[in-house]
C-alpha cells in the first residue's frame, strides 16, 4: 500500500475572533484527487492556503512526504526549504489566473521560468518544452511571446495550468479552477485537467462549490460547513447517499449531477 503524500492533523486557522477552519484532518495518497466543497465562507480557500504552505495555521500540522527526506512538517521547516518545495514538488492554480501569472512576462516566459527555477538552462530545450505544453493545454504555440493581458480568461487559465504542470509536480492545489469561465470553456478545462492529472498521476486538492466539477475530477470528497468537515467519503458516496443534513441540502439544492 502506498504511503500518504500529505497528512493533515487537526488543522485550525483563526483570524482574530473568527475561526475560519478547525479540526481538519485527512490524508492524501499519491495520485489521489480530493475535492473540498461547501458554500462560500465555509473556509475552503483558507484551508487550501494553509495546506499549500502559504498561510501558517493557528493550530495543527501539515505533513508532506518529500521525495528523498521522508515526511516534513511544512510549517516547521525554514522558509527557503518551504519555497523550494513549492517550486519543485507543488503547483498552485488560483481561481483568478492573474494571481497565478506574472503579467509583465510573456505566456512562454510564465511557463518557462518554472522550468528554470528547477534548474533547466538550455534555452532551445526550454522553448521546445514550453511550446509542447502550450499545445497540450490547447493554446496556439505561435502565441508563445505574447503577454497574458492579450489572452481571454479561459486562455489565461490554461497558461496557468501549463505553468503549474510543466515541472511535473507531485501535488497540485486548485482553487475554483473553472470559476468565472463560461460553460464550454469550463468543459474544455475540466477535460484537460482530468486527462493531465490522470496521466501524470498527480495528487490534487481541489476546492470548488461546483458539485459537477468534483464528480468529474475528485476521487474523494470532503464537505465543509462553518470551517469544519461535516462529511467525507468517496465522491459518489457523498453525492449519491449524503448523510449529513448540510450535505443533503447541498446536493438537493442543485440540478442533478
Amino acid at each position, binding site marked *: 500500500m502506498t504511503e500518504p503524500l500529505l497528512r493533515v492533523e487537526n488543522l485550525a486557522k483563526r483570524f482574530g475572533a473568527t475561526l475560519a477552519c478547525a479540526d481538519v484532518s485527512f490524508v492524501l495518497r499519491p495520485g489521489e484527487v480530493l475535492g473540498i466543497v461547501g458554500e462560500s465562507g465555509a473556509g475552503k480557500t483558507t484551508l487550501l492556503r494553509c495546506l499549500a504552505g502559504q498561510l501558517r495555521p493557528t493550530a495543527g500540522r501539515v505533513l508532506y512526504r518529500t521525495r528523498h527526506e521522508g515526511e516534513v512538517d511544512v510549517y516547521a521547516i525554514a522558509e527557503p526549504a518551504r519555497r523550494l518545495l513549492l517550486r519543485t514538488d507543488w503547483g498552485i492554480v488560483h481561481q483568478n489566473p492573474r494571481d497565478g501569472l506574472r503579467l509583465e512576462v510573456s505566456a512562454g516566459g510564465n511557463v518557462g521560468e518554472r522550468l528554470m527555477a528547477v534548474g533547466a538552462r538550455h534555452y532551445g530545450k526550454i522553448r521546445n518544452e514550453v511550446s509542447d505544453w502550450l499545445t497540450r493545454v490547447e493554446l496556439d504555440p505561435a502565441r508563445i511571446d505574447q503577454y497574458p493581458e492579450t489572452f481571454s480568461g479561459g486562455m489565461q487559465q490554461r497558461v496557468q495550468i501549463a505553468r503549474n504542470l510543466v515541472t511535473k509536480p507531485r501535488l497540485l492545489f486548485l482553487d475554483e479552477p473553472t470559476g468565472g469561465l463560461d460553460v464550454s470553456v469550463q468543459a474544455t478545462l475540466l477535460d484537460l485537467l482530468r486527462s493531465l492529472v490522470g496521466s501524470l498521476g498527480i495528487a490534487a486538492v481541489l476546492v470548488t462549490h461546483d458539485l459537477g466539477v468534483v464528480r468529474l475530477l475528485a476521487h474523494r470528497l470532503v464537505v465543509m460547513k462553518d470551517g469544519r468537515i461535516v462529511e467525507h467519503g468517496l465522491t459518489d458516496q457523498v453525492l*449519491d447517499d449524503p448523510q*449529513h443534513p448540510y450535505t*443533503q441540502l447541498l446536493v438537493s439544492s442543485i440540478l442533478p449531477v
Partner: protein
Amino acid sequence: MSNPKPTMIEVRELAKTFVLHARGATIPVFADIGFDVDAGECLVLAGPSGIGKSTLLRSLYANYRPQRGSIRVRHGGGWVDLAAAQPHEVLDVRRRAIGYVSQFLRVIPRVTTRDLVAEPLVALGLDADVARARAEALLLRLNIPAPLWSLPPATFSGGEQQRVNLARVFVVDYPIYLLDEPTASLDAENRAIVVALLVEARNRGAAMVGIFHDREVRAEVGTRTLDLADLQRAA
C-alpha cells in the same frame, strides 16, 4: 485453485435506512439481508418497484453506505469488506474486481465513446492503443456503428447509451458484475446480443447480481432468485 466455483460475494446482516433530514423522514429499506454468490452464478434481485433492489445493488458497489452488516468480496487473494473498507481500498476493488452497470450512462464532456469505453482498461495500466482496439471490438459486437465511436455519447439514443454503458464495464473481465436493468431500453435484436454477452461472462466464471425486469432475460441469465418482498414479509 481447488474449488472451481468459489464464493465471490458474502453478504451478512446488511441493513440500509435513508434518513432525510430536511423532511424529517426515515425510510427503512432493508434490515437484515444475507446471501452468497459463487463464481459462475447470477443472482437475480426480484420484488416490486421501490422495494430496494437498486439500493441493495448500489450498496454492493459501496456507492450507498449501509448502516450495519458486511459485504465481503474476494479480491487480490483475500477478502475485502466493502462496508468497512478505506476509500482507496474500495477504489481498488472497483478498478479490478467489480464492474457495475448503472441504469443510465454518465457522459463525460468531450470524451469520445471509444475513449470512454477504453478508460477502465487504461486505468488498469493497459497500453492506450491496445485498450482502444479492445473497446472498438466490443462496441462492434454491441452493434454501435463505427461512425459513432469518435463522438461523445451525449447525443446517442437511450438504447445506444445503454450499450455503451455495458461496453464500458464488460471491456474488463471482472470477476464480479452488478447489473441494474441492463436491457431496459433495448429492442429484441440488441437484447439478444446483450444476453449472449452476459451468459458468456457468467459461463467464464464471473459472479453476477442483476436486476432484470424482462422475464426472458431473467430466465436466460439468472441462475437463482432473491425476492426482497419475501425477506420483508419474513421480517
